[in-house]
């Protein structure tokens, strides 16, 4: 038996023993996701246990080095683990911006002390992170941000406002872009980490068209941040920010595969469609969806092999989110007036309509579709003046 086959057999046996049956059922909605953190309310004992055993084994972050709480697995082993988890329908044990965004940036730009301090608690789901990027005046033009951090000798003093901070009201810590110099737009930004329980931090949820409030406004009023909580060099935070954005875009591109336990394709899942025009649209959608799934797998293989162009996450983010918006337009069309119900038990609280509205943010958050296309035009196609 090859080493990989051996690893597969071991992994299968371990999952069989350790993955609670309840965690092998499809998620009913995004609400079933496990986020961990100081104040997270687990839905069940099984959810808590699944996160814990996977975290202890380092398999919440299978390809991170074991010295930082990861599984230390090779790309091939990581793929085997994902395949075996998929085979038994295992849920993701831990959804986390620490895993999908901050972790990769710390691995690349963090000091040894920062890696040892922050990465293991991310892997175990102990600290929930949020992202302080956008500001009221700095959306697509992110580098125009104005939140200030002043050097006070023994600490940074942070003042300003962030917006669209996902789950800021539930997060324990924030990774935050701040202006440490006004002399250069991109060259005056630094990347800070701090505790959301620090004095002077406050949050206010934003009610969205879906009726949910996953995003917040976040205010900083004379927040003191220890000097050792800057990642990378002072005024070089834009490099860290861009690298992290690549990982954020990778994560968001996964929307193209259908979130929340939904299948990649719509055919059959929508039941009988008696309108041939809609049926044709669904048929073409399913071609796009299956082709995107192949691309997604290929993209991950390329990333792990270090062969992906640095701008490819932008292409994937664009394609995945536009696909997901189309998916939900078709779900609404197939659902007719049933799908319009907003509060009824029958509609599970307006699930179809609310999810449809939620997807409209996919092509805005993490950089709009137009921003992604601009990045591809500039960095891959090398078009002039892009």
């Amino acid at each position, binding site marked *: 038996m090859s080493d990989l086959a051996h690893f597969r057999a071991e992994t299968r046996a371990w999952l069989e023993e350790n993955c609670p049956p309840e965690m092998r059922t499809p998620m009913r909605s995004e609400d079933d996701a496990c986020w961990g953190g100081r104040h997270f309310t687990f839905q069940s004992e099984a959810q808590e246990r699944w996160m814990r055993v996977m975290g202890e084994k380092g398999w919440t972050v299978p390809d991170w080095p074991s010295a930082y709480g990861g599984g230390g697995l090779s790309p091939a082993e990581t793929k085997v683990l994902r395949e075996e988890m998929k085979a038994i329908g295992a849920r993701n044990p831990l959804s986390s911006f620490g895993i999908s965004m901050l972790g990769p940036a710390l691995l690349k730009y963090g000091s040894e002390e920062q890696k040892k301090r922050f990465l293991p608690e991310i892997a175990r789901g102990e600290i929930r992170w949020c992202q302080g990027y956008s500001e009221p005046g700095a959306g697509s033009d992110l580098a125009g941000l104005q939140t200030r951090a002043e050097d006070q000798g023994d600490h940074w003093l942070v003042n300003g406002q962030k917006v669209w901070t996902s789950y800021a009201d539930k997060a324990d810590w924030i990774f935050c872009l701040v202006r440490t110099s006004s002399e250069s737009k991109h060259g005056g930004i630094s990347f800070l980490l701090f505790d959301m329980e620090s004095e002077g931090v406050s949050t206010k949820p934003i009610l969205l068209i879906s009726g949910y409030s996953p995003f917040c406004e976040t205010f900083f009023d004379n927040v003191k941040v220890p000097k050792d909580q800057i990642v990378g060099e002072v005024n070089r935070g834009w490099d860290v920010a861009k690298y992290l954005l690549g990982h954020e875009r990778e994560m968001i591109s996964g929307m193209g595969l259908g979130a929340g336990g939904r299948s990649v394709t719509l055919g059959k899942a929508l039941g009988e469609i008696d309108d041939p025009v809609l049926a044709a649209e669904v048929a073409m959608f399913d071609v796009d969806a299956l082709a995107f799934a192949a691309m997604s797998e*290929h993209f991950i293989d390329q990333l792990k*092999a270090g062969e992906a162009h640095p701008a490819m996450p932008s292409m994937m983010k664009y394609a995945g989110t536009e696909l997901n918006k189309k998916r939900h337009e078709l779900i609404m069309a197939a659902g007719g007036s049933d799908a319009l119900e907003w509060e009824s038990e029958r509609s599970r609280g307006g699930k179809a309509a609310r999810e449809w509205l939620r997807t409209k943010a996919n092509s805005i958050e993490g950089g709009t579709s137009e921003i992604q296309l601009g990045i591809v035009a500039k960095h891959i*196609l090398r078009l002039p003046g892009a």
Partner: protein
Amino acid sequence: MILTDDQRQLADMTRSFLSEEGTIKKQLRHWRDTGCKDGFGHGLWKQMAELGLTGLAVPEEEGGLGLGATEAALVMEEVGRNLTPSPFLTTALVAVEALKGTEQGKRWFPGIVAGETVAAIAVDEGPHHRPRKIALQATRSGNGFALTGAKQFVVHGASADVILVAARTGGSPGEPEGLTLFAVPRDAAGMSVENVTLTDASKAARVTFEGTQVDADAVVGEVDGGWEPLRRAMRAGRTGAAAEMVGVAAGASAMTVDYLKARRQFGKLIGEFQVLQHRAAHLFGEIEIARAATLKAAELLDRGEEKAGIMSHVAKAKAGRVSALAVQEGVQMHGGIGMTDEHDIGLYMKREKVLDTLFGDANYHARMVQMLIG
């Protein structure tokens, strides 16, 4: 999927060979403008044989390279990029796949490997690819069968030494059962071949059978068992055609992006206009996706997985849509010059339309995907 070193070498070798010998000027325009009856050059076919390409899919024990659908796709993409006319797709991929493991294979493989034999496949009987609806009749007669009916869109049919003809020995149109595949040599009595020039200057034949007599040993595989080799051949054909369309799209798109960086209007390069940048970037992503879908189908075929069926339909449908977008954007962004025969971009548009139609268009394959989704 990450390509192996051997696969990369094959792709590199093919790319440098075709970008030298298979160019639009040396091949497509040359044979078109000289009115060649074959629409391709036998010299190039022979050169491809010397590189091992004509026998790429032929099993090693029969003198070929014994390679799979992934390698075939890598070669096809380069063919598409250069619009190189050759019998590679229909002879070296489709016919070889149908003939694998049969007595007829033993007969024709040596000539294919040597670059001396051209093989064609005759499936369509109307303007659309509907393989289950095959009605051409093969009835028992003497020591063999007599074929009666007509086929169209038989690529390189008039140049072929042998035509693989899908005929009905049983069942009725609409059923996969009762089909038989015959290897009909070019000199078969009662077979008339009309050589037809298509939009892209390639040649396809309309073939009429009027009681054409073939021996019993002309049967490829089993009588009434034609669906299996036909299905395999069509999977290879549609995956190969998808890869060729990815090449056509990539070639047209590269030419177009170059033009955006060279053409000036309103005092600046037209590639500076955001409206064109975004369309070019969208197209780039779509081509990447079409390529990934095609290589995925090839990978599944090579692993012998059942999902290869649906994925080969996905690949052909996606590549068809994407390459159509690529050539339409290509001509539009070139403006007036794109409408001229002198410029190559229009040749990509013509080739794309033929390839999309070959072995079923995007609509057909999207319908098949929908049928197969469980």
